[in-house]
Structure formats: structure tokens, C-alpha cells
């Protein structure tokens, strides 16, 4: 019997020829990630366990991105705990403010996350690296602590669900974000609980790496353990285009024809419109054409889902020559310094500022209601982020509508949730 890509990676990392869903494996870990919110707890647990050094100074990655640049004194103290730990442990991949970015955009840029890897992170969106053909999943701080010590973690091998996207996208504004919102709308926020979501089909082959990252990023929003797709020439091209080459060997896996799946879903591009997820769940989706009369106070373009270069580029094209509507605050946050620099060189930043938007240094900031764009009671925001839970971006009485960058940019111009094809030609 064949294996899925997820099963193959877990087998290879746990010294088994084959593994089956439900089996508990003790897996080697290639990268263990923490941030300024989750690492401080992991660092206390690390000490509690009596450990004195990390298993590998190259494989532990620490990024201050959530409340950084430090939003207040308490955050500054937490960031300092992580910085000191990184220094004492001689962690090679600690990225200081000025060199950092939102972790899930930054790590692939540095070629730290590779096809065939097992990656864990004390951050739920660690599933993003599935876009590269890696098994990657979010865990808590205690798991991170144990992995930093031993280089290993236990997993229950998940069952896999296959999502096949046939056909082509309806218009050029349809993005990876729309595909994943569409799926979550179909299966619900626990529709893939404990399972692997495997994405495949012509629309995935056609999708850019930035779209693939957005897709894998939100697998956790359906409750999944990981999202994954097979690596191809685009994956290689992406890796080769980075300044730093991979420091380790890697293996490209794909699922066998006769692998067993929990379920198989087939979708057709003709049925997938631009999506908007209404408050307060990412599964509350509807086509943008049905999102009428929603007036907004703020637009956020950024996050580990949609803060990459092509996301900004789409938004810029729509904004060019237009103005942000009076009464709307638009905040653009390039996900990494490198993306920021490219956006500047290619004139995107100028368009944003001309239109009346602010452009921020990389940070998670408003995505988790941290800083840099918190909502007041009763305010509404269209965001390219990944969660619209109660109070996620500020006051518990505020509302977040999730969408891709095209809908977000078009809505900034009109002040109501808008189909971008109404503003520019598709």
C-alpha cells in the first residue's frame, strides 16, 4: 500500500519504512521555531527541565515579530528574555528588529525551511511551510522546549484529506487566499481536525509560491495538523532565487497513486469566486458579490498569510491613481525587510503613500490585536489576515472581514466591501 507525502516524511524522520495513520512516532525535527510571545514560556520550561543547551544552534530559530518593534515595557522585557537566550545559546538564526520579518514569510526567504523537512513552531501558522512540501505544524511552548532540548517530538500520524482543484481561476484576482477560504467555508473550522490537508490539481500547479504559502498557511483554520503540497519546479525556482542557499540536504516527496485518504474533495475553478469571511469565524465565507453594504473603517494588508510581494503588488495595481476613501484608514505591512525593500524599489510604497495609506515596518501588529492598528468598539476592518475571531484585532465589539489583497484594496478605495472587478478591469 502506498503512502501520502505526509506519511513518507514522518516515516523518514522516525526511522520507519512505513507508517500508518494513528501510529505514534518519535520524529526528528529539522527546524524548531519560537517567537517573542511563545518562546519566553518555552525558555522557562527549558530551564525547568534542567537543560543547559539546545540540541542544535542552527536548527532553533527565534523571531521577535508579534509585539516587535516592542509595543510597551512588558513586551520589551519579553523580547529581552528571548534575545538573551539566543545570545547565551549561540542561536545562529535569531533575527533582530531591522533584519526580521513575520516568521512564516522570513524562514522560507532564508531557505531555512526545505522540502521534506519536519518543522515545528510554537505558532499555529507554522503549517505555512507545507507549501514547500514539508511536514510542518504548530505546537505549544512546552513542546517547543522539549524539542529544543532533544531535537525530537512525538506525533500521531494524521489521516490525510485530499483537495483537488481542477480547471482554472475565474479571474486574475482569485488568489490562494480565495481557494483556502472557499475550502474552509465548505468543511468548517474543525472540518480537518487532527488531519493533514493535501492540496493538488491544475490550479495548485498554476499557483504562484506566494499563493501556495497563503493556502497552506490557513490549513490550521480548518483544524488541520498540517497543510501540504508536492514540491515542483516553482518550489525549486523559489529556493534558488533566495540570496542564501539551503544549508542542508533536502528530499522532495510526493504521494503514491495508491495512498489511502480519509476523504477526497474535488473543486472546479468555475465555482470559486473571490471570497470574504464574515465575523467571527474563517468559515463564515461568501462570494464577494454577496457582501453588499458593509461599510468599513480600516483595511489591513499584511500578515503571514498575505504580506508577501505579490500580495502587495496586486493591491498596488488596484490602488494606483486612486485614493483611500475618506474615513478609511489603510495600513500596509510588508511581511519582511526584503519584501519591503523590493516594494520600495519597484515603486509600490509610493503608490500606497500617494493613495493615503500608511506603510509599516514588518510586524504581526494588528493581525493579533497587538499594536499598529487596533480597532475601537463597533469598527469594521477588511484584513488579508487569517482570523476574524471575536476581539482578534481589538475591541470585542469590533469586526474583522477576511479577504485576499484584491478585495481589500478595492474596499479601501470605496469604503465598502467591494469586488475589485468593479474598480479595475479583471
Amino acid at each position, binding site marked *: 500500500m502506498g503512502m501520502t507525502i505526509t506519511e513518507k516524511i514522518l516515516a523518514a524522520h522516525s526511522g520507519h519504512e512505513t507508517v500508518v495513520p494513528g501510529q*505514534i512516532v518519535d520524529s526528528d525535527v529539522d527546524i524548531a521555531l519560537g517567537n517573542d*510571545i*511563545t518562546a*519566553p*514560556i518555552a525558555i*522557562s*520550561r527549558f530551564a*525547568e*527541565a*534542567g*537543560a543547559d543547551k539546545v540540541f542544535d544552534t542552527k536548527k532553533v530559530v527565534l523571531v521577535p515579530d*508579534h*509585539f516587535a518593534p516592542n*509595543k*510597551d515595557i*512588558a*513586551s520589551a522585557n*519579553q523580547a529581552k528574555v528571548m534575545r538573551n537566550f539566543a545570545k547565551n545559546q549561540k542561536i545562529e538564526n535569531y533575527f533582530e528588529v531591522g533584519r526580521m520579518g513575520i516568521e512564516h514569510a522570513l524562514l522560507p526567504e532564508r531557505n531555512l525551511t526545505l522540502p521534506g523537512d519536519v518543522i515545528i*513552531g*510554537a*505558532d*499555529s501558522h*507554522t503549517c505555512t511551510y507545507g507549501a514547500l512540501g514539508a511536514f510542518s505544524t*504548530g*505546537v*505549544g*511552548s*512546552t*513542546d517547543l*522546549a*522539549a524539542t529544543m*532540548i*532533544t531535537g525530537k517530538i*512525538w506525533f*500521531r500520524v494524521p489521516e490525510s484529506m485530499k483537495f483537488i482543484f481542477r480547471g482554472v481561476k475565474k479571474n486574475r484576482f482569485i488568489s490562494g487566499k480565495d481557494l483556502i477560504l472557499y475550502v474552509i467555508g465548505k468543511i468548517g*473550522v*474543525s472540518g480537518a*481536525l*487532527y488531519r493533514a490537508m493535501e492540496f493538488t490539481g491544475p490550479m495548485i500547479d498554476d499557483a504562484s509560491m506566494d499563493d501556495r504559502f497563503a493556502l497552506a498557511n490557513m490549513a490550521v483554520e480548518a*483544524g*488541520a*495538523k498540517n497543510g501540504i503540497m508536492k514540491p515542483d519546479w516553482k518550489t525549486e525556482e523559489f529556493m534558488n532565487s533566495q540570496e542564501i542557499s539551503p544549508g542542508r540536504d533536502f528530499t522532495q516527496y510526493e504521494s503514491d497513486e495508491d495512498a489511502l485518504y480519509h476523504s477526497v474533495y474535488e473543486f472546479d475553478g468555475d465555482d470559486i469566486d473571490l471570497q470574504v469571511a464574515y465575523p467571527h*469565524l474563517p468559515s463564515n465565507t461568501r462570494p464577494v458579490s454577496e457582501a453588499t453594504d458593509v461599510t468599513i473603517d480600516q483595511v489591513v494588508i499584511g500578515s503571514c498569510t498575505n504580506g508577501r510581494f505579490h500580495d502587495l503588488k496586486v493591491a498596488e495595481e488596484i490602488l494606483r491613481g486612486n485614493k483611500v476613501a475618506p474615513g478609511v484608514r489603510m495600513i500596509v505591512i510588508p511581511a519582511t525587510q526584503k519584501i519591503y525593500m523590493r516594494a520600495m524599489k519597484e515603486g509600490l510604497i509610493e503608490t500606497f503613500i500617494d493613495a493615503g495609506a500608511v506603510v509599516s515596518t514588518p510586524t504581526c501588529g494588528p493581525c*493579533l*490585536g*497587538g499594536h499598529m492598528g487596533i480597532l475601537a468598539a463597533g469598527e469594521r476592518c477588511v484584513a488579508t489576515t487569517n*482570523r476574524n*475571531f*471575536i*476581539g*482578534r484585532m481589538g475591541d*470585542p465589539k469590533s469586526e474583522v472581514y477576511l479577504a485576499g489583497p484584491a478585495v481589500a484594496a478595492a474596499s479601501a478605495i470605496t469604503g465598502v466591501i467591494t469586488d475589485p472587478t468593479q474598480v479595475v478591469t479583471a
Partner: protein
Amino acid sequence: MKLSGKTWKFGADVDTDQIIPARYLNTIDPAALAAHVMEDADPTFAGKVGEGDIIVGGDNFGCGSSREHAPIAIKAAGVSCVVAPFFARIFYRNAFNMGLPIVECKSAADDANTGDVFEVDLAEGFVINKTQGKTYESAQVPPFMQNLLDAGGLIAYTRERISKQP
């Protein structure tokens, strides 16, 4: 281990942003986190929850972020156990790792009203609603996770692992 306490009932999909909103994540002090536990689901909860009380959640309790601050806040608020039909993946893992008992039992969670008194037997795997006079069987804890609990959580387990290293 047997636990007994008064229940507080919540709906489905209570996410970790409701359990402990991100605006309070600039500390890892358990008591400071407990002061805001469940705040965006019920702003008055931290003021009324008592030592030993039991949270009864709906489907997918603890979905969303990986923040361990969520089970820490619940535990530090004195809550002895969480009962729900099923839990989100990372929350489930975190709770075991840090020793917060959680129990999957759909009918007990569905039937409960706030204020009912529960008795939870973790070892035998059942939940009794003393107020309603009903007994329910709860889901078995996988053997591997039982070992982890017996070892005293993941940190104790890891400490053993380190001490065995040459």
C-alpha cells in the same frame, strides 16, 4: 484521579483569543493571565470562577492560536478540568503537556447547564452530572498520552530523557 466542581458552560468554537486575548500576552505570569481568563467570551468570568470549578465547552474548544497562555490562564484561575465534545488539536496537546486535565465527552457537555455539579473520574473515564443525576462515559485517553500524564507532563518526561543520556 477524581475531580468535582461546579460547571460553567460555553458555546462552540471558543478560540484562544477569547480564552486569553492577545492584548494580555505581554506577560507569562500565570496570575496576571488568570485575571483575564475567558474575557472575550464572558467579561465577568474571571470575577466569578472559583477554585475547582469546571469549564464545559462546545465543539472545537481552544481553536486558533498555539498560545499556551490559554491553558495556563485556565489552570491558574483554579479551574480543575475542561469537558467538551472535542478539542482543537494544539490546545489538546498543550493541556496534556502542562497537566491541565481535559475530557472529551459530548453528551455530558451537551446536557450540562451552568451551575450543575460534575464529578469527573479521569482514570475510569466517566463524568457524572450530580445535579441532573446522569452518568456518561468519556473518551479514552490514548495510552501514549496516559504515559505522559503519569510521568508528570512533558517537561518531567524530558527531564528523564536527559538524565538517561550518556
